[in-house]
């Protein structure tokens, strides 16, 4: 059962990713990316990481991609044009992606202290324990400093966006806060 679902949604995910590359219209590509992200969320769910799955949907599929489609709609972007750069990218891109994938998977497989998750089983050994609780324990006890540093980083990004918006002489409004997402 889990295996069937895994292959189904892995298939969706790959099909979405390939479609994303083949489509020439930005809005179709954006929609394919949403398919990729939601299928990834289902894969997380199958591995027992329910919080990660729903966070993926809320943050990436629900918020980030809405901004993408919003910008595409606002700029009324047309079809993609073929330039020298894009042709070169399609030649070099595929070998580069294969190489990157190989390097990353080697590093991850060789890394010490990383366990493996199994389809249809929880991430933790204790059954019935929500991985939300464990995640927050790790995040707010062991990794508190990196967590806070990350939020400061995001705060700096917001300040930068506000400064840029003011430099252009525009008055205040909602737009500068959009960067917060």
């Amino acid at each position, binding site marked *: 059962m889990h295996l069937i679902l895994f292959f189904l949604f892995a298939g969706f995910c790959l099909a979405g990713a390939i479609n994303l590359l083949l489509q020439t219209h930005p809005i179709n590509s954006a929609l394919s990316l949403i398919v990729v992200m939601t299928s990834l969320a289902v894969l997380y769910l199958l591995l027992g990481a*329910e919080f990660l799955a*729903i966070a993926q*949907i*809320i943050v990436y599929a629900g918020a980030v991609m809405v901004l993408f*489609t*919003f910008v595409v*709609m*606002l700029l009324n972007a047309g079809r993609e044009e073929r330039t020298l750069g894009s042709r070169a990218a399609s030649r070099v891109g595929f070998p580069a992606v294969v190489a990157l994938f190989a390097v990353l998977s080697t590093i991850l497989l060789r890394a010490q202290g990383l366990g493996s998750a199994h389809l249809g089983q929880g991430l933790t050994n204790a059954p019935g324990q929500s991985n939300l609780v464990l995640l927050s324990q790790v995040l707010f006890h062991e990794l508190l400093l990196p967590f806070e540093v990350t939020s400061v980083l995001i705060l700096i990004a917001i300040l930068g966006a506000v400064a840029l918006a003011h430099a252009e002489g525009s008055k205040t*409004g909602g737009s500068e*806060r959009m960067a917060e997402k």
Partner: protein
Amino acid sequence: MTILEFFLWSLLKVAVVTVVMLLGIAYTVLLERKLVGRIQNRWGPSRVGPFGLLQPLVDGAKSFLKEDLIPTAVYRPIYLLAPILSLGCALISIAVVPFGANMGPHGFDLFEISNINIGLLVILGVTSMGVYGIALAGWSSNNKYSLLGSLRSSAQLISYELALGLSLVGVVLRAGSLNLRVIVEQQATLGIATWNIFGGFQFLAFFIYLMAAFAETNRSPFDLPEAESELTGGYHTEYSSMKFAMFFMAEYGNMINVGCVATLLFLGGWTSPLGNLMPPLQSTLVNALLPIFWFVLKVFLFLCLYVWVRGTLPRFRYDQLMNFGWRFLLPLAIVNIVGTSLWLAYR
């Protein structure tokens, strides 16, 4: 309970809940027309059936029989996908809403389609996906009014989603769980005195949720995406027949969803105003049906509030909308979170 039994029971639940939800949507439309009619000193629909009670059925038949126009210059795949996406997202959320006490044969949850430990987040996630229906409808229609409507809608939904999510954090902090059943049961101990809106001191959060929810469902006074007077109908200008009806149903479905969430998080869910103070009755049937009565009553009152506001308040201007969301609701929600956390830490 075998896999087959589980599957059949689940199928039954899904069928019943979907039918009830669709009927609820149809009669919410009637409720709105009746109530707005009374607010404006007229009767509202009164010809079809007693008190106009058969009006939704006639409206449905009319939508089916109307000619289905598709303008030539639309982007067809997305144009056809958008209403389905919109209605689908509106109907999915009810799957994680518990509307009665946890009871049934062999520990099977009879009054909730699926009881999961991230129920609240699932509702938020599905709601955030619902934006695409509106955004893509406006874009694919190839009409400037539609596009303006959907741009307004996307910006509005992104802005108010933040305030909406943050307003719920206080409740989650108090309950210590994202499971909707746990959140409701935590409010049941002393009845109305422990409902989150009163005993939990979350009335600020309730206020923020209410405002943000009105904006999220594109309802008056935040109905800028479909402002008739300036956009001829907004994102669904180019839709006709059943496709238009699907957007219409999605809007009312979202109203019901918002009512359900408000009931569960702030108004004690299916528990009675006396909560656990009232001893359970002898009859199993009454014990099963009474919670459903309370739940439906609370959602109904919430919907009446919705209609009342629609009948009373004028529409916001666009800059007022953005200022209200970002400069007032968002800081207020953060203040509520800090206040609730301090209170919980102090206790």
